[in-house]
């Protein structure tokens, strides 16, 4: 699947959607929805919360489409809206309370964070998904924004309302846990094969 910022949306389609053309709006929705939902799900983990944030982002996009100046691809603009909303959620007291509840039931946390993978997915992908699911939500968001979405430490720090060293330390910790998780899984697979 293409990343949100890389999805090409024709300028004419954006103009028509901005003018209120429902067919054009539907076209934009269909083009962006899968990548947007994947990103939101990846950042917040919990599926129900991800559905809410997905809807919020889509509503905000269509409401504010008139403000889009076309300096960056539409997908990148929508990604910025989505990331801001997801990180606001991760910083909210509501999310901290949810973490507390999930801590009492580790299974609930794991199930809600684990992403759907197709049956044809490779073992390597399954390993990555499992390792990602084991990260803290903030660590997962930082590593994803830095390594996949290409955000800088300064941008991540600004989005979280924290210092650059916060972003760097979160990334270092998340990478270390990923490294350990992936190595551990490979060890387990090797033992199973024997």
């Amino acid at each position, binding site marked *: 699947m293409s990343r949100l910022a890389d999805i090409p949306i024709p300028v004419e389609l954006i103009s028509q959607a901005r003018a209120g053309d429902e067919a054009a709006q539907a076209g934009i929705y269909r083009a962006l929805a899968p990548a947007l939902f994947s990103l939101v799900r990846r950042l917040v983990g919990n599926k129900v919360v991800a559905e809410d944030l997905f809807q919020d982002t889509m509503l905000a996009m269509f409401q504010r489409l008139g403000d889009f100046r076309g300096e960056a691809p539409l997908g990148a603009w929508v990604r910025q809206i989505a990331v801001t909303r997801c990180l606001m959620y991760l910083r909210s007291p509501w999310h901290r309370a949810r973490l507390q509840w999930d801590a009492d039931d580790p299974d609930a946390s794991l199930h809600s964070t684990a992403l759907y993978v197709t049956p044809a997915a490779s073992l390597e992908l399954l390993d990555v998904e499992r390792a990602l699911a084991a990260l803290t939500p903030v660590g997962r968001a930082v590593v994803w924004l830095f390594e*996949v979405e290409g955000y800088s430490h300064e941008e991540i720090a600004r989005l979280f309302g924290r210092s650059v060293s916060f972003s760097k330390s979160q990334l270092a910790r998340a990478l270390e846990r990923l490294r350990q998780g992936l190595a551990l899984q490979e060890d387990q697979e090797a033992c199973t094969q024997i």
Partner: protein
Amino acid sequence: MHTDLNEKIIARRLRGASDQPGEAPPYDWAEFQRRRHRSMLTRTIERNRPVAIAAAVAATVLVAVIPYLRATHSPAPRVVHPNTTVDNDVSDRQDQARTRAIEGWLARLPHDRVIVRVGTHAAVSSLQDQIAVLDDLMSTERAAGAQPVRLDALEKQREQLVGSLAQVQYAEMLASANP
């Protein structure tokens, strides 16, 4: 087997994961449109909530003040002149017809409201109770062979209560339609 995974390999794997077909969005365009319209409606309701509350409070105050004013400023007893009987009969019939029309309108109002406002609900219940008490009283008075003047006075009182009830219900209906 232990593999030394450096950051570049992890980054490559993560990007590989992002290229996989992910979970499908929770709903299609049609469902999104439905939710979008509902969200716009909710926002409109939220925006107009202060007006609705003000209308409900005004209606409640009105209903509370009317019985007080009626109690403190009782109208002078009506003097019945023999030569005004025909006019009064016509007027009474018109009042009764108006009351019946109001009662018909009230009966057609939905009983299970979507939004129930506590103040208005209390006022409506109080008026309905007063009307029921008057109905009982009128039945008793009729059975006891009361004077027509007495029955007429009770009937007038009932008409006023029905009128007040209609005003409150109408105010509530307006508040619900333009929340």
